[in-house]
């Protein structure tokens, strides 16, 4: 991960700051808004993954992961995005949900960790923007 920081705000090590600045430049208010949007929809998007796994629907599970995948690009977590992509590709290779149970559990753990990182980063950004106002 990048160790890029500014004099005003430093992203945590879990966030690729270059990725963020490439999209939003240093508009921290906008960055906060985008993190908030991601958080507002995170549970619903993750629920889609859980539901389709429980319903044993491999294609819909793949689609649900495909949907959430770019989310992590918008919050500077390309590694998580790549992990989603790998899972999505794995779905094409296997015959049934059972064949990817291990990958699925691993993905869920990654999503949970990422969720927590996004929450923490959003809180930091909100606090920073309030103090800068």
């Amino acid at each position, binding site marked *: 991960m990048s160790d890029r920081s500014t004099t005003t705000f430093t992203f945590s090590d879990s966030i690729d700051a270059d990725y963020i600045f*490439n*999209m939003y*430049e240093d508009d921290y208010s*906008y960055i906060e*808004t*985008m993190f908030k*949007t*991601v958080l*507002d*929809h995170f549970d619903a*998007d993750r629920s889609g993954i859980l539901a389709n796994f429980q319903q044993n629907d491999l294609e819909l599970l793949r*689609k649900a992961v*495909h*949907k*959430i*995948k*770019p*989310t992590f*690009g*918008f919050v500077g977590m390309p590694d998580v*995005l790549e992990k989603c*992509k790998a899972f999505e590709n794995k779905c094409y290779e296997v015959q049934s949900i059972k064949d990817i149970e291990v990958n699925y559990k691993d993905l869920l753990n990654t999503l949970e960790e990422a969720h927590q990182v996004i929450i923490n980063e959003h809180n930091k950004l909100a606090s920073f923007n309030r103090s800068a106002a």
Partner: protein
Amino acid sequence: MKLSCIIVEDLQVAADYLKGCCEKSGRIEVKAHCTNVTEAINFLDTNTVDLIFLDVEIPGGQGFDVLDKIAYSPKVILTTSKTEYAYNGFEYNVTDFLKKPFSYQRFSDALKKIEATTTTSKNNDTNNDDHIFIKSDGKLIRLKNDDILYIESMGDYVKFVSTERKYVALNTIKNLETKVNTRQFIKVHRSYIVNISKVDNIRENTLLVKGAEIPVSKASKAEVIRRFNII
């Protein structure tokens, strides 16, 4: 003048980011955000836009289904995280492909391509030929524009209905839309191109052409009214 667009995207953060890019450019007005195929088709059935930002994997089918169903051909920029769809994009003649997430600079480059192709197509909009050649029954046949009443889609084929007879040729309405003399012909429905000078009567959403009833789609109606100089 700003280009009008719709965003077809089921991921909220991606749609918001795209809206932000459009606003920042100052060159695009976002008319709507649709999250699935049906919503997009319904919107485009009653509204015309210059440009569609189109995600491919969306609820209700594929983004390409939207392009199959609409009656006209706006510019398209695919926005997807899966590069495999680029090939299909070529088949649908999309102008560019934005892999999510993308930078504002990349967005801006795509916009320049749209503006360049829009200018080019306006400059090329001078097809004044008085005839077309079609390949039918293994022969090349010269059809005078004045003899063609209308052209009707038949799946992968089209039927040219002239004053004398009918010809079937391997082609699509979408392709012919840009090939025929656009001063003389107008696409009034996803399945019909009509010779403006041959229309006898206009009733609500139907054109009468030498006894044949040609439907007018909602999306084409405004352009039909403009071209027929209805007062």
